[in-house]
C-alpha cells in the first residue's frame, strides 16, 4: 500500500489521482499541496527545470514521511507523488494530499510533509536560465532545523 501512496514518476502528475488515494468515508477534510515550476526566483527568470532523484531511496524517504505523519497525527492519511525529469513553467513537480476527519490535522500534516521533503528526500533540481544552468542546493525557506536525520549539513 505504501508503494502506491508514495511515488516518484517521470510523467505529468494527475492531481485528482493523488486526491483519490486519500479520499475515504471517515475523512471530512483533504488538503493538497501542489508544487509548480515558478518562472521567477529572486528576480531571475527560469526557462525550465530538471529534477533528478535517487529513486528507490526517495520513495523510501517519502514513505518514511508518511510514517512520521501517522505517528504525529494518527488519523491522517498521506499520499505523495514527485515528478522527475524536465519540467516547464507551471508544470506540477510534487503533489501532497492528506486526508483526515478534521481540517486542522490535514493542514498541519500537509505542511509538515513539504518541509520534510525539502530536508530528507534525495531529489535535486537543476535550473535552466537564459545565461546558464545550476543544480540547486538547500532551499529551505525556514531557518530552524526540526529534529531527525539528516542532522547538520543541510
Amino acid at each position, binding site marked *: 500500500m505504501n508503494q502506491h501512496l508514495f511515488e516518484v514518476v517521470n510523467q505529468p502528475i494527475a492531481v485528482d489521482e493523488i486526491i483519490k488515494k486519500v479520499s475515504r468515508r471517515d475523512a471530512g477534510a483533504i488538503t493538497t499541496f501542489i*508544487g509548480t515550476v515558478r518562472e521567477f526566483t529572486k528576480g531571475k527568470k527560469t526557462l525550465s527545470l530538471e*529534477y*533528478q*532523484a*535517487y529513486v*528507490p*531511496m*526517495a520513495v*523510501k524517504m517519502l514513505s518514511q514521511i508518511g510514517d512520521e505523519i501517522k505517528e504525529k497525527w494518527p488519523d491522517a492519511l498521506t499520499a505523495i507523488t*514527485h515528478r522527475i525529469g524536465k519540467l516547464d513553467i507551471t508544470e506540477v*513537480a*510534487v503533489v501532497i494530499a492528506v486526508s483526515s476527519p478534521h481540517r486542522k490535522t490535514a493542514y498541519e500534516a500537509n505542511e509538515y510533509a*513539504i518541509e520534510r*521533503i*525539502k*530536508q*530528507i*528526500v*534525495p*531529489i*535535486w*533540481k*537543476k535550473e535552466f536560465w537564459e545565461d546558464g544552468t545550476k*543544480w*540547486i*542546493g*538547500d*532551499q529551505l525557506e525556514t531557518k530552524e532545523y526540526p529534529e531527525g*536525520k*539528516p*542532522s547538520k*549539513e*543541510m
Partner: protein
Amino acid sequence: MINVLFFAAIREEAGVEQVTVDKQDITVKELKEYVQKTYKLSSLKQTMTAVNEEFVTDDETIGTGDTVAFIPPVSGG
C-alpha cells in the same frame, strides 16, 4: 567492492553516475577522501551519505557489497 552513486552537481563533476571502488571496511570519511581525490571533486563536505538507502554519519564503516550514495543538499518539492 563498494558501489558508489553520484547525483546532481557531483555527478556532473565526476562525469559518471556510478563507480565501483575496490575497498571494504573503510569509514564513510575515508571513502569520501578517496573519492574526492580520485574524481577530483571540489568538495564533499556539504554532502550527506546513504549506505544501502539509509542516511549514515561519516564514522559509519562500509562493508563489501554496500551501495554508497553521496547526497548533496536536496532541492526537491
